[in-house]
């Protein structure tokens, strides 16, 4: 049934009767309900509509430093070890030092190097918040199948990486409550900067 085949490309604009001109694009119809009160000066345009709770939940995947937004569920180092071997090891390596040629970088190591000439920035040495590891893994990893892991799996893999990094006790089950507790080694390593650094208008860093 043709009507059910979603087009994957726009067709050329229709020819108009009489002149053969190309039809202009269809005037967009708003998703708003009809009859809304309109007052442009008060930013009431009758365009767009209220987002439902389900619509928001479907995309509100972020996890914040204090654990806000973290999903239900949990996982352990032991579970994570197996999941890592299945989903991550190909690019980040058995020793979590990355695998050349895959783009997968080192996830642990590098402590004490940040003030040297050859700093090594990893989850272990550099990242200020554990939530970022969960959030990023959930949204973007594994690179070849992003968004494919369940919350439980992401908790377990995070527990495994933080365990290998010596940040989280290997016995601790990771869950939404854990984020507020974990102390990342470089938690105090960041500050807000006021630039520019040089030239007229120079402003000192604000700590």
């Amino acid at each position, binding site marked *: *049934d*043709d009507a*059910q*085949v*979603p*087009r*994957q*490309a*726009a*067709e*050329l*604009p229709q020819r*108009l009767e*009489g*002149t*053969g*001109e*190309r*039809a*202009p*694009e*269809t*005037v*967009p*119809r*708003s998703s708003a309900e*009809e009859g*809304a009160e*309109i007052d*442009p000066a008060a930013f009431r*345009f*009758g*365009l767009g509509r209220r987002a439902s709770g389900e619509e928001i939940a479907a995309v509100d995947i972020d996890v914040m430093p204090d654990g806000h937004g973290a999903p239900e569920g949990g996982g352990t180092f032991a579970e994570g070890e197996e999941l890592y071997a299945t989903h991550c090891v190909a690019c980040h390596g058995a020793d979590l030092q990355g695998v050349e040629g895959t783009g997968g970088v080192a996830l642990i190591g590098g402590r004490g190097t940040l003030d040297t000439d050859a700093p090594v920035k990893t989850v272990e040495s550099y990242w200020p918040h554990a939530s970022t590891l969960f959030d990023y893994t959930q*949204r973007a990893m594994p*690179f*070849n*199948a*992003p*968004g*494919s892991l369940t919350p439980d799996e992401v908790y377990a893999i995070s527990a495994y990486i933080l365990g290998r990094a010596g940040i989280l006790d290997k016995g601790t089950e990771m869950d939404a409550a854990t984020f507020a507790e974990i102390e990342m080694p470089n938690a105090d390593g960041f500050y807000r900067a006021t630039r520019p650094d040089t030239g007229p208008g120079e402003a000192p860093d604000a700590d």
Partner: protein
Amino acid sequence: ASLGGAMIAAAAGRAQEAPPGAALEPVPEDPTRVQGQPVLSENGYGSRSQFESEVRWRYPTATAHTSWSMTPLASGHGIVTPSGLHFERHHAGIPTIDPRAHSLILHGMVEEPLRFTMDDLMRLPAVSRMHFIECSGNTLTEWEEPTLRTVQGTHGLTSTSEWTGVKLSTLLEMAGLRDGAAWILAEGADAAVMTRSVPVGKVMDDAILAYAQNGEALRPEQGYPLRLLLPGFEGNMQIKWLRRLEVSDTPYMTREETSKYTDLMPDGRARQFTFVMDAKSVITFPSGAMRLPRPGYYEITGLAWSGRGKVAKVEVSADGGETWEEAALEGPVLDKCHTRFRLPWVWNGEEAVLQSRVTDETGYVQPTLEELVAVRGTDSVYHLNAIQSWRVAGDGEVTNVHA
């Protein structure tokens, strides 16, 4: 990665093709779950989305080699015209010219005749300017009655680009004008060997030999590798594929400045050398052949321009010219350049007639068609710059009307 030009077989077996200027890629159900196309997927020169399909429209002349195609102004944004949608007017097709085989000869009433390769020209001091080009035949179908249905048809022979090249005055200074030099013949290397005579005053003022458009080489349709740019003058004079400039004391009276591009007046005599494009504006949204889906908020927007300088003001009427409201001008407002205007509008579902009226910095006000016809009659073909009217019917249909 890119299946440019190829087709994708949709689920039910219906083949789909990418629109002109697009490459066809598979559309994943959830783009967050699968890697997209790799960086440099189109070998380093990208193309538009497969979901965009506005195109130039060719006016149905007898042959496609002397014909014109029009910019889809209704789908435009801002003031830059995408180079792939710049209007075209060719009298003998688009020549394909190898820039290494192309040269420009400057001769006639000069101290020293000169010859420039493209390499020479690219080394000279350059300028970049944003300017509109409008064919003086733009809107020619609309003198007697509303004829074409869309703003692309009625007004699509105008486009704006950022042009880069050498000031023609630089070349004339190099060659040295002789006493009495008053006109310059510009000649193209197309199969029409297109020629126009240009007053020296204009040339010394702001003429540019352009080799670039919107940050890259001129497009073939715009005269690759070299065109004359005469900001604010009718498009036909801005000779493309430029190969020769001859300086003289009198105009050459070429076919394009006698048989064509002269304005026949009601008394049977004709105006000649009506170079400047008078100020003009048009509402591009809403415009002809659209249909407003229902009453509500719409932003009226369009373009205004003047061959005499900057746009000073645009007024919009929703009642066929009885009352006018000043529209906001989007910056930058540039000399001899399209200027976008915008005005919020709440359509109450009743019939309306939308018009725009530009005033340029010389104080000139865009005339009504009635005012223009009172002077010119309806047989002068060129330079119709009157106020355009779009009627919005009760059911939302927008049509081209004379009001």
